[in-house]
């Protein structure tokens, strides 16, 4: 029995050593990312958190204010509330609108039509164009005098608005523009649609379900994990919208497109109030986390995973 026991112990030692080596290898592989995360994300984040309690311009020294920046934000700064309203409006309109359109386009492109590959490419193409180029393009489209949009409205006998030059229309303009990028989400919905087993539709048809019933009771539940993912991503992205107002409107006219990130950028880099800008960033961070949690918690009620058993 002794040799067998020895073999067993040796095997355990080997396994243990092997496991340690595997763990070490894994950590070594992860090390570049961990170092990058600590140095370029977590470090600056903690620094920014500290900075948010100071009046700091990063050049001449700073003064501890405790919660002074946060107090000023919430009680004395109408522009902060304005930027919050602009950002929230943009997020809560553009995300559902984008999701609805992306699903609609995905369903259309999930049909057996001719030139299917071409149409899929055409719809996806805009989402690979850089944000700055898209903004410049839409500047032309929104041009009140000779833009494409007002030209089309004129054909219909409608006098178009001044779009980004009118404070009532500037934010709706940016929301309309956000639809430009639905191609990216469309692709994910398309993948989701193609993953739905056809027998579910066949069974529903045999039970007498019409097209609407099949969409509502089969497609939507089966697509809900993709919708969940896209809504989370869209919400996070839209709360951070920045380049469009920076390039197209500068936050105007009359602060109608002043997003929170643009406002914090202005505070930091135009007014050198880095402490105050950090406080805005942390408030935005808290808002993003809150809404992300809200969507995650609510997902138990509306997201369905195939094969999942519920109590």
């Amino acid at each position: 029995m002794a040799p067998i026991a020895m073999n067993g112990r040796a095997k355990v030692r080997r396994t243990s050593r092997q496991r340690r080596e595997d763990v070490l290898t894994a950590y070594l592989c992860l090390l570049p990312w961990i170092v990058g995360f600590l140095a370029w994300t977590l470090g600056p984040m903690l620094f920014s958190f500290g900075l948010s309690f100071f009046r700091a311009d990063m050049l001449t020294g700073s003064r501890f204010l405790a919660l002074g920046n946060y107090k000023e934000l919430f009680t004395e700064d109408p522009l902060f509330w304005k930027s919050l309203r602009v950002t929230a409006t943009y997020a809560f309109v553009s995300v559902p609108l984008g999701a609805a359109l992306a699903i609609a386009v995905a369903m259309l492109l999930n049909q057996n039509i001719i030139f299917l590959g071409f149409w899929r490419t055409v719809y996806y193409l805009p989402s690979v164009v850089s944000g700055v180029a898209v903004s410049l393009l839409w500047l032309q489209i929104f041009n009140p005098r000779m833009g494409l949009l007002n030209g089309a409205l004129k054909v219909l006998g409608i006098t178009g608005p001044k779009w980004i030059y009118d404070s009532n229309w500037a934010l709706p303009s940016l929301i309309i523009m956000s639809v430009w990028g639905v191609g990216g989400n469309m692709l994910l919905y398309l993948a989701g649609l193609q993953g739905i087993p056809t027998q579910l539709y066949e069974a529903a048809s045999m039970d007498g379900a019409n097209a609407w019933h099949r969409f509502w009771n089969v497609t939507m539940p089966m697509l809900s994990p993709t919708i969940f993912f896209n809504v989370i991503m869209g919400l996070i992205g839209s709360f951070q919208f920045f380049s469009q107002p920076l390039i197209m409107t500068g936050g105007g006219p009359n602060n109608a497109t002043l997003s929170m990130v643009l406002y914090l950028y202005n505070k930091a880099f135009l007014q050198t109030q880095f402490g105050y800008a950090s406080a805005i960033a942390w408030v935005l961070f808290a808002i993003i986390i809150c809404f992300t949690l809200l969507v995650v918690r609510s997902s138990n009620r509306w997201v369905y995973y195939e094969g999942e058993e519920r109590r």
Partner: protein
Amino acid sequence: MLSKTCSRRRFFQYGALSLGAVAGSAVLAACGATPAPAATKPPEAATPASAGQAATQPPAPAATEAVATAAPAKAAAPGEVRFAMWDWYAYTPGIKWDEWNQKTAFPKFNEANPDIKVSWEPMDDFTKVLTQMSAGTAADVMSVWDPAMTVWAEKGQLLDLQPFIDKDIPNADSLYIPLAWQQMWNKFKNMRMGMLADLDITSIYYNKQAFEEAAVPLPTKDWTTDDYTAAATKLTKKDSSGNVTRWGAEIRPAFWEGYANYILAFGGQVRDDETQMKCLLDSQDAMDAIEWMRKGMFETNCFAQPNQMSASGLPSTWTGAVPAGILAMAERSADQFFSMADGMKDIPWDIAHIPQGPKGRSCMGLPDQWVIYKGVIDRNNKDAAWTFMKFLTGEWYQNQIVNVAARIPGLLSAVANWATGLRKAEPRLEKVHLETLTEQLEMGYPRGDQMFRYQAVAAEIIDPAMQQIFTEGKADAKLMKEIAPKVTAAQQKAASEAGGA
């Protein structure tokens, strides 16, 4: 019951939370990037200024002299100069200023100064420079313009050049264009912030043929704002449906200097001269000027509105509108001569004076500057940087600013040859009365900026108001009665905070 240890639901939920955290942290990291560790230490000497003191006085010395708390500058070898220059001359066709500097100007400098190596750095925007200053890595010599130069000076980031000037160029006051040279002096910090690169002044660039066709007399040296409006009205063309196809002029009041100079011409001011903190836009003269511009844009529409001009499909709305026939006259900077010669090949054009206002005359007279970063003291290359600065502001380089870039140089002796040099460089300018610009300088009506002490703070309130008036046409000059006290209060608050920081 969940069927697996980590279901897809859990995976997606954790994934979503991680995404939220990472996305949020990207914003936070961007805000807190490039930290200067020492800068976070509360300065011991800093005490909040009293409200009464803050209302009238600049920041306390303790705050503005706290530059020592910023990160130490990165060491550089003596005799090496990093030169970061904004490409002011990017609009000049055929000129690549960075290439010209490196291939022609730097070798010329090295002939006389073989021990000093100059390296070129592009200057993207002032955001980058701020972060470089915070990290102590800004270039030694940089191009800049206001209000950034004043902000950098107030934050203690610039070398005071006056001691160098006193030693090496004692007659500097008489060498450079006085209007521009005065703007290099910061009366609050009592220092010479920079040296003069060139001067930009606005004039009226007009299509002569349009005047002849509409039988409108050409602008004269002494024309007035009333003459200007009358000419613009007659030059405005409409099609059979009543849509404007060409506007008489464009005065760009959405641009700070665009309205500031008309306010001066109408006898008003944007702010007081002494403290530069009291907003005077609610004075009757200032409001009269604003109303004159607004009516021209939104009542007669002889002046084009921003939405009628911006993104109009032209390669450059800066100069393109006159050659394209969308404008008969345009108020423009003095940096477009080669472009205009290209665009107006077959159309006669000329340059006119800015019209006389009811109580004075004023046009933009803003310099571009070169400054030396204070980090050169620690880098031990301040003498090399100053030697290079003397080269940039000396006769050879200043003459090249005329010949290569068609700009008005800061050096008076080079200004004298400006029109001749420019015609030599661009023969198509032979028939253009370039001397209008030198006449403007002689007549003394180009004016410096009307910036506030805390310009970005003022702009945060004034710009949206001006957009309501001049971009949207939804308000009139009376809005200034509401805005001006807010601006003054915000300036006082900023002064108080600067004193206490």
